[in-house]
Structures are given as C-alpha cells and as structure tokens.
C-alpha cells in the first residue's frame, strides 16, 4: 500500500506540474505586481495608517464613480477614524426618508448607514460612463483572481494607445486599437476598458496622516488596494487571531488523543 501511495503521489505531482505549465501558457497578461502589504501571510495584519490613506484615495478619487454599499460609516472607526470624523463623513451624504407629514425628504446619513453610492441607479451610472458600469467596490478584491495584487496592477498598468497596438491582440489576432472613451490596460482581461486611468499624478490626493509617505502614484494605488481588501474582508484580523488559537488547541488535543490511542492499543497486535 505504501508503495502504491508513493506511486500515486508521484503521478499526482506530474499531473500538477503539467497543469501549471499549461496554465502559464494561457494568459497574455504580465504577472501581477505585489504591493508588499502587511496583511499578507498567516500572521499578517492590516496597517491602519495605510487603510486610512487608502480611504482618502477612495473618497478623493474612486467614490466619484464607484459605490461601497456593503460598508457602513461606523466601520470606519475600525480603521482608526474618530467617531466625530466618521459622523462628519457620513453627514456629507444624504438618504431619502419619509417625514411626519408623509413627504419624501433628504436626511443626512449617520454612522449606522451604509456608504452612499455615487449614482441613483445602474442606468445613471452607465449613462455617465460611456455605457460601462463602474462596479461596486465592496467586494472587488475577493471578486477578482489575484485580489489586491490584481487591483494594484490594474491601477498602475495603463499603457498608451500606441503601445497597446504594439503589445496586445484581440481574440482574432488583430492588434488592439482603443476607440474614443476606451483605455488600454496590461492587466484587464481583454485589455480594453472604459475606466480612464484614475490615479495619474503624484500628490493627486493630499495625505494628511503623521509620517505619511509621499503620495506617489504607486503609493496611492497600493494604499487604496489595501483599503479595498479591508472593505471586502473586515474580519480578517479576527479570523487569523482566532485561527492561531484554534490550531494551537487542536495540535495539543490531537497530540493527547494520539497518546491515548497508542496507550489503549499498546500490546494489541494489529
């Protein structure tokens, strides 16, 4: 049986090797860029200063087109904003409520409310964006292969139209030519998208935090990707913390159970 198992593992290994080779041959996008984020790895945690900077980028740039409807304003306290700051940010947006006389009126949002989306509906969003729908960003890092790495690469992966025509082909093998209102990106599947490069110049967002790094294009892209990872998976730190405890407990338990198992079976031929 052992020999058989070894043969099997070898076979599975060969299959896997062939699979990765085939996979690598398929895509035409360059490998994703990594942002060296603090949240990567088993022990990784969010860097709250980075999340706050990323939030500034989202507020200052992306929120003009993209919603964040799964996130509530109160969640901002988690990344270190004060209650007053969060309240103020919420209050800048309104929601429709029915007042005592039955009229529909605008009321400032509060901490318990979710982020306001920039457009009242999808049709309005499309009409304002050349017919393309800017997706809600609440879950974007979990909804794309590569997650935050994809997002980061996308934001800094725009290429000029000339380069595009040189480097990329459509599915018929013809060189790509972005039309008016279309842009070319090395990482976007199919390379042509309707989002103009959102982060274009150093200092586009003014970082306010103490010891904030220089707001270069790369830094802003990195920070907003970290923020959107948090927006998609706000319980990651809690999850990993509990996970480490659970694994340690299970290691201990399994060790004890193994000891009991050996003891009960001692002297029994099997």
């Amino acid at each position, binding site marked *: *049986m052992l020999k*058989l198992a070894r*043969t*099997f593992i070898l*076979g*599975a290994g060969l*299959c896997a090797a062939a*699979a990765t080779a085939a996979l690598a041959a398929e895509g035409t996008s360059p490998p994703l860029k990594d942002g060296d984020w603090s949240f990567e790895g*088993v022990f990784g945690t969010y860097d709250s200063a980075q999340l706050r900077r990323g939030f500034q980028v989202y507020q200052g740039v992306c929120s003009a087109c993209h919603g964040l409807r*799964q996130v509530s304003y109160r*969640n901002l306290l988690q990344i270190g904003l004060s209650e007053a700051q969060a309240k103020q940010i919420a209050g800048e947006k309104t929601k429709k409520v029915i007042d005592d006389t039955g009229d529909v009126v605008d009321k400032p949002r509060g901490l318990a409310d979710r982020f306001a989306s920039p457009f009242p509906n999808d049709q309005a969003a499309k009409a304002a964006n050349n017919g393309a729908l800017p*997706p809600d960003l*609440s*879950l974007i890092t*979990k*909804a*794309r*292969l590569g*997650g935050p790495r994809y997002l980061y690469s996308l934001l800094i992966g725009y290429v000029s139209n000339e380069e595009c025509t040189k480097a990329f082909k459509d599915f018929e093998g013809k060189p790509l030519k972005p039309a008016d209102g279309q842009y070319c990106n090395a990482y976007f*599947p199919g390379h042509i998208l309707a989002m103009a490069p959102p982060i274009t110049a150093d200092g586009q967002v003014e970082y306010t935090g103490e010891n904030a790094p220089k707001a270069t294009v790369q830094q802003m892209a990195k920070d907003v990707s970290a923020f959107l990872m948090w927006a*998609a998976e*706000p*319980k990651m730190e*809690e*999850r*990993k913390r*509990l*996970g*480490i405890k*659970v*694994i340690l407990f*299970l*290691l201990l*338990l*399994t060790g004890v*159970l*193994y000891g*009991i*198992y050996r*003891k*009960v*079976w*001692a*002297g*029994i*031929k*099997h």
Partner: protein
Amino acid sequence: MSTPAAHGQSQNRTVKWINDRLPIFTFADHFQDYPAPRNLNYWWNFGSLAGLVLMIMIATGIVLAMHYTPNSELAFDSVERIMRDVNYGWLLRYVHMNGASMFFIVVYIHIFRGFYFGSYKSPREVLWWLGVVILLLMMATAFMGYVLPWGQMSFWGAKVITNLFSAIPLVGTTITEWLWGGFTVGNPTLNRFFSLHYLLPFVILGVVVLHIWALHTVKSNNPLGVEMKGPQDSIPFHPYYTVKDYFGVGVFLLVFAAIVFFFPNFLGEPDNYIPADPLKTPPHIVPEWYFLPYYAILRSFTQDWWFFQIVFSWWGVSAKLAGVLAMFASILVLFVLPWLDTSKVRSGRFRPMFKWAILVFLLDCLLLGYLGAKPAAEPWVSISQWATLYYFVHFLVILPILSRIETPKPLPHSIAEAVLKGGGGAAAGATAKPMEKA
C-alpha cells in the same frame, strides 16, 4: 461478549425501568460490544469523519438559515450581512462553505477505500448502494446550496445544470420550466432550492442510519479482505476504534481549521462575490471542484466525436442528451459495480493487476477533474473524450476481464493468522478488558 459496563443489564432501577419499556440502553451497549476487525488501517477513519462533517453542516446550516434571506433581491446582501454584522457569522459561513468541500474530499477518499479493498462485494452490496444514494443526495444538496448566495456562479451554474433537463426529448422544456417555477432561473427557483437544501441533509441523515445499520449487520471489511471468522480476528469497537477515530478527528479538524481560518476562499470561485446578473454571462462557467469530473464527462460529448456518432447519433440522440446520460451513468454505474468486478478476492493487496487498474482509474478521475475546469476548446476536448471513454472502459471492460484473467496472490486463512504472524503479541481478542489494560 459482555463488557463490564453493559448498561442493558444495569441494576439501577431507573435505568432498568426505562430499558424494559424502551431498550435504548441495550441498544447503546451494541456500540461497545460491536466487534470490528483488529487490522483496520487509517483508511477506515473516513466513514466517521463523513458523519462528523454532516453534523457540522447541519449545525452551521441551521444557524445560517436564521440570518439568510431566500429572495433574489436580498440573498446576496444577506450573506454579506452574515459575513460582516452577525456575531461570528464569518466563521459560520466559512465553515459551511468549506465544509461542503471537506465533505466531498472525505467521501471521495471513503469511496476509493471501498474500491481498493473491494468493500462493495458480497455481502456488502446493499451497504454500498446506500453509500451511492448518499453521494447522489450530497451532490443535489451541495448544488442547491451553492445557488443560495446568489452570486454570478450561483446563478449561471444553476442555469447551466437545470438547462440540461431540456435535452430530454419531447418533455424537456416542460420539465425545465417546472424545475425553475418560471421561464428562467429566478426568485421561485431560489425559494425552492432553499427549501430543498434545508430538507435533503436530513434525508441524508436517514440514509446514513440505514448505511450504519447495514454495516452493523454485515460488519466491516478490512485491509486483507478476509472475513472475521471468530473472536481472535476482532476487537471491540469501543474503546479501540473510538480512540482511533478521535485521533483521526483531531488530524482532520487541523486541516479543516487551516483552510477555514487562513485560506477560506481558496477553494471558491471569485465570480461568486459578484451579485447574480442574468444579463451578463461570465466568461468561464465552472462548477465547484467536486463536480468537475462529471462536468468534463458532460462536455466531452460533442457532435463530431466519433464515439458519439457511432454509438448515439444514429438513433436520434443529441450530443447534449448523450452527455447528460453519460454524466448520470458515471455515478449510476457504481450501483452495479459488485457485479462487474466478479473476482472472489476483495482486497487489492492480493490482486496484482487490479492494483494498477485502480491506480490508473484514480489518475483518470483526477485528469477529468482538471479538464472540467478548462474551457471547451482543443486540446482539452479531445483529452476529455479519451478520459471519459477510459472512465467507462474501466468499469465495463477492464474490471470484468481482470476478474477472469488475474491470478490473485494466496490469501491468509484468517485475520489473526496474518496479524499474529511472527508471534510475540498478546492474543487479545474481543474478550480483552481494555480499560483495565489501559
């Protein structure tokens, strides 16, 4: 075969009073006395693990259902509420989501254990059938569960799979619309899937009880595939296999916890974090990993495949229908496996040719799984076709022939003979008093 702590014979008046009216204590004793082969290896741990996962799925599922909203407008957001605002909701959901994968891993290993050691052979055919029924019910349950979060893959997976029924001649469209409760996958579909997703696990539970009942009637097979002939071959299930099962549970939970806490989305599809959009087909529609081999079989039937043309097309069967039939047949063939493999020897250890056949079959299944995730284009289609063909050839041609031409190695006369060979060990049979030893 009485053990010291047989509750059924207890002199405690309350216990006796109850036991005389409903013999639940006598019934409980059964687990203590139940004789198991003394030589079971770790491959025999997976049955109890499957039972554990079923319990975990039911427990987490019931709590999820308290927070989930089965409405096509609200379902996606309600799952996100669970992830963000319900206390430990993220844990419940990640355990339930990955629990489905763990369930299939465990059950697939359990089934391959049965293949290799010939556990489907007489007198265990009904036990085996019940196992296949559980597999079918699990597949239905997992398929409908995956639809509930109402993401892109939920919606399009449901659409592709329910659409398969439209391949049935004459009544296909009627059946599909009846399944949908409308003219496409929509809110009525989601509602009925939720209802059935809640129901089926309890049906599985019922079949599991029958499965164990059948097991306790015919007793466990073992790595030698030689039946127990007397007390020297066996050992009481408790405490010997209970402690071994607990150890297995520890190892299993370690793997499960590592996935849930550190890689919870590794086995999932990113597209399912996009809300369902009936107007936007995802570029690649792929099922969950545990369905990929069947998906590859389904898709391997193309109009221009020579095998399809020779066997199916001339009696008017469409390629789609042939694929659907083949997909169902790939599971249904397991029901007749006991009569396809007619070798009297159960265990692969004593079958020099079968051992290789089953290994190649396993690789074929893995290959089919790999191909199920590939786009329907060359060279994947041709490879799937050969792999599909091999899947059925293994059962319908190789196994029957092997059973006839193979010369098995000599079998030991009994488990005890094989185990005690070399001597030295105490011959502790089923009469040993374990707790005094330990």
